[in-house]
């Protein structure tokens, strides 16, 4: 594949990621009415800018972009009352799809010629992980709807999960050199 085509592949990945982010940022606006909609629109705009920046230009903006999209969704969620939001699996899959497409755009270096097999494996993996995210989020929502014991058990599970994730954060936040080993 010649270099200009590879550059176009990178741009296409970045634009696809931006499109997914746009859907994630703009869809919640339809669920809010009144003056709060304007404030949320500003947040959505900022989130979209960050997301586009992360996908097309500055990969270091990935975490802020994800957080902005998540914050917008949380606000809309809280506006909706106590009813469980059935669109949450779509949001989960969308967030993962956006992040993975952005990461693919970063990986698609125009100077590196990717074999067709590499691209096919990546595309299949992306589709599979998006579907798996959709299914997992749906399962969690279903599990949350089941009358499984009291609030304490659920809280314990939540605390353990959050602690595990924080431990992961601590593990990942270690300097890269400590995880490195030379052969």
């Amino acid at each position, binding site marked *: 594949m*010649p*270099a200009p085509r590879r550059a176009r592949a990178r741009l296409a990945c970045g634009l696809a990621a931006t499109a997914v982010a746009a859907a994630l940022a703009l869809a919640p606006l339809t669920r809010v009415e009144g003056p709060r909609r304007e404030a949320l629109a500003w947040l959505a705009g900022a989130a979209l800018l960050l997301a586009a920046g992360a996908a097309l230009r500055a*990969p*270091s903006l*990935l*975490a802020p972009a*994800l*957080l902005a999209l*998540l914050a917008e*969704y*949380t606000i809309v*969620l*809280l506006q909706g009352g106590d009813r*469980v*939001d059935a669109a*949450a699996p779509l*949001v*989960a*899959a969308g*967030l*993962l799809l956006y*992040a993975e497409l952005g*990461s693919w755009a970063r*990986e698609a*270096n125009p*100077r*590196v*010629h*990717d*074999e067709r*097999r*590499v691209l096919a*494996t*990546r595309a299949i*993996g992306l589709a599979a*992980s998006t579907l*798996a*995210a959709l299914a*997992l*989020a*749906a399962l*969690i*929502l279903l*599990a*949350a*709807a089941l009358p499984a014991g009291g609030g304490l058990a659920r*809280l314990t599970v939540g605390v353990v*999960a*959050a602690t595990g*994730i*924080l431990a*992961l*954060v601590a*593990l*990942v936040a270690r300097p890269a050199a400590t*995880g*490195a*080993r*030379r*052969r």
Partner: protein
Amino acid sequence: MTRRPSAKIAAYTGVAALALLAGLALGRPELVAVAAPLAVLVVAGLAGARDPELDAEVVVDRERALVDDEVTVELSLRAAARVERLEVLLVVPPGMEGPDGATRTWATAVTLAAGEERTLAVRVTCRRWGAYWLGDVHLRAHDRFRLFTWERRLEQPSSLKVFPLPETLRALVRPLQTQVSTGTHVAAQRGDGIEFADLRPFLPGDRPRSINWRATARRGGLMVNQRHPERATEVVLFLDSFQDVRGAAGSTLDQAVGAAASLAAAYMRQRDRVGLVSFGGFVQWLQPGSGQAALYRLLDTLMETQVFATAAWKGIRHLPPRTLPAKALIVALTPLVDERGVAALFDLLARGYDLAVVDISPLTHAGRAGGDWGELARRLWVLERETLRHRYQRLGAAMVEWTDAVHLQQVLLEVEACRRRAGLAPG
């Protein structure tokens, strides 16, 4: 291999942790559902991350090539564990060109199954003469979830010498003096040979077959033919590599090296002994030799010629006496840009060497300067060079300017004509 976590891990983990905490605090399962895929992907990635244990080998298909030849660099890759994406980057040295016209680097990405062995053949085109090291390869393996990369640099350099395309030379500059060994040059001395030299009276010990019966009949006494023997010569190619004037179409050093290689091959074809003195940032020399081995030795040394900026020999003005054999013809290839090279040639003339100078014009490579001052400077430079050439010619050196448009053969013929006019060439 060096393992590096990607920025994605921190982003995913941080976002998942915050979403989980928010879900707990606000009592919203939707936030947990949103966080879960990110968290699961990181956990799965961490659990499955394994060093791919790559084995790699680089082989270059040959050691010597000509300019514009294609050389194949074979990369053999084998991984113990599956590698979803393996980036292979080959450093292409300046003067060479990778596939699709890639300069500096050429990279590809492949997938490797566990235990699979792949061989990538990369065709590299040699665009400029020189000595190269090929085999600087960087490998970067990605895991399935792109959470970790493993990097490794292969340093298995293979040397490659790229020779300039030889020019066909039919006539060479003939030396004034010959050596004692047999060759193809007609010597000025008399002895056994083919070329007729003179007649003289018969002396005891002369061979009967050398008697010239016609002259004997005319003169009434036995006369014998005297002949010129065919002898070999020693030629030293003097390469001034103090400075290189480079333009879009090439450089003075490129011209000099190409000419030296062609001259060396042509002289050795006629069984002369050829040596080399590369006079630049440091002095390299090869004593004259003949035959294929000597030719390759000379070309190998020639390919290592480069402008080498050093202060160690900054005051050098003359060559060490041992570098130049007596009675040798010295063919100097110089752009007459650096005063040390200019002074060294004057020194050789003063020491009585048989010197022929090819002045490789830097004017064509330097390009045209803009404005009146640029034009004036160029004219002054041309005048300076002409003055210098006249000074050499007054001292007895045959010197001809070689512009880019002229073939080397034409320049050599002009040098030979100059030498004949000055009484330096035989015949």
